[in-house]
């Protein structure tokens, strides 16, 4: 336990012997002024602490709801290198076996609310895509669209865990 009974300042103002009225009143006024100031300071601090606590409690409740989502995001983030390699392996050697395995993996993630995204032809959107490079195209319609998905993106419901990393088309009349 901490210290107790620190300097015990008199809580009342004893009349000093022979003290005159005006002097006494002046002393009391000063004392009152100090007391009022202190009261305000303590009230402020107390209100602040109460407000902090109320806000904190509200956020904790919110955080509790987010907890599951955070845990899922953490797992997917840890899995990303393997998921990326799987995607690349499948792209290099698209065997039936690999396709089945890959589909099974993505289906399982889907059941947990995690979706793979990023398709060729989508309009480039930095909220969902990360541009790795530009690729010249002859078609004006391909301008500012996803030409190649280099690595797929993943979302948990609306939250982008990782954007799809893509090549973005740039229309050039003369190629």
């Amino acid at each position, binding site marked *: *336990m*901490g*210290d*107790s*009974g*620190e300097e015990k300042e008199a809580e009342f103002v004893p009349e000093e012997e022979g003290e005159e009225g005006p002097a006494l009143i002046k002393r009391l006024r000063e004392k009152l002024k100090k007391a009022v100031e202190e009261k305000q*300071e303590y009230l*402020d*601090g107390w*209100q*602040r*602490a109460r*407000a*902090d*606590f109320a*806000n*904190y409690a*509200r*956020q904790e409740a919110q955080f509790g709801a987010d907890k599951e989502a955070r845990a899922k*995001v953490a797992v997917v983030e840890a899995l990303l290198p393997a998921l990326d*390699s799987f995607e*690349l*392996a499948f*792209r*290099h*050697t698209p065997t039936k076996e690999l396709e089945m395995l890959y589909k099974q993996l993505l289906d399982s993630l889907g059941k947990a609310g995690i979706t793979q995204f990023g398709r060729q032809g989508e309009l*480039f959107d*930095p*909220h969902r*895509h*990360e*541009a*790795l*490079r*530009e690729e010249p195209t002859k078609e004006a319609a391909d301008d*500012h669209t996803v030409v190649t998905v*280099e*690595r797929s993106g993943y979302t948990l419901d609306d*939250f*982008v865990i990782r*954007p799809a*990393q893509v*090549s*973005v088309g*740039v229309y050039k009349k003369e190629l």
Partner: protein
Amino acid sequence: MGKILGIDLGTTNSAMAVMRGGEPQILENAEGARTTPSVVAVSKVGERVAGLIARRQAVTNPKNTVYQIKRFIGHTFDEPGVEKDRTTVPFETRKSASGGIEVLMGEKWYSPEELSAMILSKLKADAEKRLGEPVTEAVITVPAYFNDSQRAATKDAGKIAGLEVKRIINEPTAAALAYGFDKKKNEKIAVFDFGGGTFDISILEVGDDVIEVKSTDGDARLGGKDIDQKIIDWLATEFQKESGIDVRGDALARQRLDEAAEKAKIELSTAVETEVNIPFLTSDTSGPRHLLIKMTRAKLEELAAEFIDRANVITKRAMEASPFKVGEIDEVILVGGQTRMPAIQAAVENFFGKKPHMGVNPDEVVAVGAAIQGGILGGEVRDVLLLDVIPLSLGIETMGGVNTKLIERNTTIPTSRTQVFSTAADNQTSVEIHVVQGERAMAPDNKSLGRFVLDGIPPAPRGLPQIEVSFDVDANGILSVKAKDKASGKEQSIRIEARSGLSEEEVKKMQRDAETHATDDKKKMELVEARNLAEQAVYGAKKALTDNKGKIPADLEASINERVSAVESKKTSDNAAEIKTTLEDLSKELGKLYEAIQKAGPSEAPQGGGGQTPPTEGGKGPETP
């Protein structure tokens, strides 16, 4: 009474924090990250974006993506240093009417203040979302070498973003605040800040209520990015040696090398060797090619050596420019993610002859310090409000000599706690409240703080009276204990001054004792609990037999009596397991008894049944005085 947001407005990344419940806390941005890239852009579809989103589209929109604007803020167009920066950035700049700099973004010219304001606006909006309340005030940090016009421009950026900038403080000062060094009078502090793109070293002195920057030096083009680049080059060269393929021109391969380099760098902070594994890095006619390279800490240190040497030279220069000698420095603080590298920590320790502080996350320490400054300005941080904790648990002695803790150690005070107890014997008219302090399971092993008796409890079967015991510890550590009988309203209390407590040495000893005796105490505790259970069971069984006399088959009555005797004979045994075995036997027979009574008719249900179960605390009750 809104929060004052502490903002570390960095060249490459920014971070923000606020004070909550008297503690600084980093706020995550909308994308869930603790730092935000200091990048703004007008996307090709005309949308204004900031942070991570802006960075993601930089490759496809370089002319309208502005980064490192901090290098331009508060400068004039013709300053010599600015010219070099102007020529290296991909976005267009021009001289403004007043001689300042303007940047073209999305067909409009902006001042560096406006562009910085876009980053600040993003931080403000994300902070408001996290806090659920408007944020209108901020403390923003700047490098110690910033001149008046750079500081004024940063303040203006805050204003444009809708923030009243309560104060602009130096980044090293913020770092010192984060460690609470502002309270250490006359201390000399070195702040070594090795960030992503810049290196700064500052020597500070804490005076009366102010932290003064005595000297500062740095290199605006030296940082963790340089080390990353070296690793990427090394990996690419090794891969080329093996496969004959140069992947440096392949954007995806580069991206993957970049991520792998960053990961290896982090892993080598704790491990001495790591494996860089990038399957399908590229492919040629022979098929896919993978990268698998072992990287040692020694290799990383070799790659990083030139940058660490450069930082060392600058540190020496800053030290010489200060009025102090190296040996006079009291504290060394590390700032910037790159300082997690053991070689950098060793270099710093070697130079100053002192272990550097790194308890606060080096990426966040500046924002944390800014939040603390905000807390001081807002009146939230006050010495009076430093809250204490109780070093040892407080409890009372209950049946069998058990220490029932009401307030656990390390609880922040002031605090109070109330718990309801009951009596241990029939018609018990008084209880003794014995207040103890300590961690040991059995009350006599702890320090006795005091005792008092609450009497006048109306006679009732054991477990029925409700005795409310309240503990209250005030801000000065003074404990008040009150016991109140809910039925009669009678109460009794005691006040225990903290001074009657223990010296620091005694507290430490008691905490150590608790640890060493933990297993022993647990065994003792189990035994007492078993004994208490046995006593209750015997009492309950006898009562049930009396209450239901004549309704129970004679053989069952005999077998119950036999088992009651068995429990009674083992009750004082020192073997908890033995007591439990006899108890289980008894409870099986009691089950049969209740079945028999049920069959006899619901109206004859055993009235005494309720009385056997103490209302609270599983029958633990203060001892009879």
